């Protein structure tokens, strides 16, 4: 009687048990992660996978059962992505990111970082000196936005009061700093993403933000509050501005790779740069969270200029060491 059966049917009948076994293992892995697989499953997986892949190529040439082919295609695709997919947990990935990937990516982008800093502090310096010469520039830069009255018309006493808190902020500053975090982190991600357009919008974004801060700096400087304002700004600003500069650098890394791919194809060059730049941008988000904590809590609790300067210098030193300190290559 078996001579009556189709070859393709017999082929399927003999192997479908193994296919379904693989299917069950994959479903379990997809739903609950690798940890839910038993040792037995892990041992069986490579064999079942190879068998499914070879079944697929045989089935393509002998079977006309659409369902079997479609099933095997989907099974092999799933198995392939599982077998050759990443097995690391989120925690492990975070550790490699902090330990190796992030500082390495920043270290690898020294020139874009300097370029980015040039644009940012260039904008800052430009606005600062223009405003010192003629305060009308301030209104040109800021238009009608008031920044809580931190403008050239404010009195020295008022400006001083914005720098120090009496310790009864009622959490408003915390809310404000998390708002600023949102804003800054979004700008940082924008600066990264806009790098794709050859880095030109990134440069503009950096100059623009430099101008915004530089002109405000001029207002305080003009009223003789330069020293105090620097402390107010830098307690978190070292971290925050560093993050913005690095985000700009991430944008330039992409922009440079797209504009000047060198010996690679434009696509390959963009891909290689994109991975590095994304690591830097992710790091910027981490830095901005730290900056927001310093801003929301640190600045509110610490009203001494000296301590503020000390924290600013300390964070600056820590970041520099973390990113640029030469370290031994760890193998494996």
């Amino acid at each position: 009687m078996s001579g009556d059966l189709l070859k393709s049917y017999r082929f399927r009948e003999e192997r479908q048990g193994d296919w379904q076994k693989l299917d069950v293992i994959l479903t379990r892995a997809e739903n609950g992660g690798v940890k839910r697989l038993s040792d037995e499953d892990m041992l069986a997986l490579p064999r079942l996978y190879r068998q499914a892949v070879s079944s697929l190529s045989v089935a393509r040439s002998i079977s006309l059962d659409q369902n079997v082919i479609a099933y095997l295609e989907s099974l092999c695709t799933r198995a392939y992505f599982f077998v050759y997919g990443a097995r690391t947990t989120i925690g492990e990935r975070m550790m490699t990111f902090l330990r190796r990937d992030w500082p390495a990516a920043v270290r690898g982008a020294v020139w874009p970082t300097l370029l980015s800093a040039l644009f940012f502090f260039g904008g800052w310096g430009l606005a600062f000196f223009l405003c010192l010469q003629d305060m009308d520039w301030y209104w040109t830069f800021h238009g009608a936005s008031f920044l809580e009255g931190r403008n050239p018309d404010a009195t020295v006493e008022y400006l001083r009061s914005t720098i120090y808190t009496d310790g009864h902020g009622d959490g408003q500053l915390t809310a404000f700093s998390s708002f600023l975090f949102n804003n800054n982190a979004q700008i940082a991600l924008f600066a990264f993403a806009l790098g794709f357009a050859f880095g030109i919008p990134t440069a503009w974004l950096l100059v623009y933000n430099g101008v915004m801060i530089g002109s405000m700096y001029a207002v305080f400087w003009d009223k003789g509050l330069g020293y105090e304002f620097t402390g107010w700004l830098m307690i978190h600003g070292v971290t925050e501005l560093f993050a913005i500069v690095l985000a700009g650098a991430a944008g330039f890394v992409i922009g440079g790779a797209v504009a000047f791919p060198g010996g690679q194809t434009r696509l390959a060059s963009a891909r290689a740069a994109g991975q590095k730049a994304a690591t830097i941008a992710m790091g910027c988000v981490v830095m901005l969270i730290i900056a927001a904590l310093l801003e929301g809590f640190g600045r509110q609790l610490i009203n001494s200029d000296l301590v503020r300067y000390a924290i600013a210098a300390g964070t600056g030193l820590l970041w520099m060491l973390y990113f640029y300190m030469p370290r031994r290559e760890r193998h494996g």
Partner: protein
Amino acid sequence: MTQTAAPRTQRPGVSLEAATQRRARMAEEMRQSKLIRRLITPEGAAIRLKLATAGERAGAFLIDVAIQWVIVIATLFGLSALIGALTPGSANIAFAFWLVFFFFVRNFYYIFFEIGQRAATPGKRALGLRVAARDGGRLTANSVLARNFIREIEVGLPFQFAMMGGDGASGWMALLGLAWSGVFLLFPIFNKDKMRVGDLIAGTWVIRSPKTKLMHDITSAAKAADASARFNFTVAQADAYGIHELHVLEDVLRQSTPEIKHQVAERIRAKIGWTKQTGETDLAFLEAYYGALRRRLEQRMLLGERKADKFDVR
């Protein structure tokens, strides 16, 4: 033999229509095959990956955006209910944390899901899509970060320009900005790999990876034994159709209503010149003919002849 030739000589109108249909079908197959990419596994076997269309991806994105909004609005409601019970100071801090949470929902929703084992957000999962590395290697966390950080200019930027509006010079600026940023938004439509800018930067693409169920074989043992006694198709009868018709017949047998099965059975009987025997059901006839047709076509395939459809006469 006369039966097989019958439709062609019958009326020229019919065959013209059939030819048009066939051409349309071929064009559609051509279009579909443009979305297929071959991936050679390290074992040397070829897996065919089908890229997701721009429409599917837009659909998945809309689902994800809806989910994000639900999360944001639900937590905001929860927060406003909570704030009544708090002092103003801690309410502010609670709001501060919500703002940070909002940022993470906005930017890390996609990353969180795509870094996982399935490499797909709930929206993509619902449509059977997943993210994969273009070179067939493993999808790294850095790629997932890159492709999702870029989303900000693809969707956020056109949206911001559209919201900017205004009249006079600022209106023109907004329009120009919209046109410029629209290039990023519509990027996937204009390249053959359906990549968005983020995919290009990250070295990824989005493929279809639907879960398919293994169904029973129509020519299973019991039925075949039963049918071979009653149905005895000649070689000519089994040669009446090709692979395309076999696949259509498979679909009909697996999922259509008895009415359609009846119509299909009638058409096949007419075409191959089969007279209905007493007590013969449409289902039994179709299954038996499917078996005979598949046997014949698979035999010919083993000898290197793929009869694509009924017009493919060799």
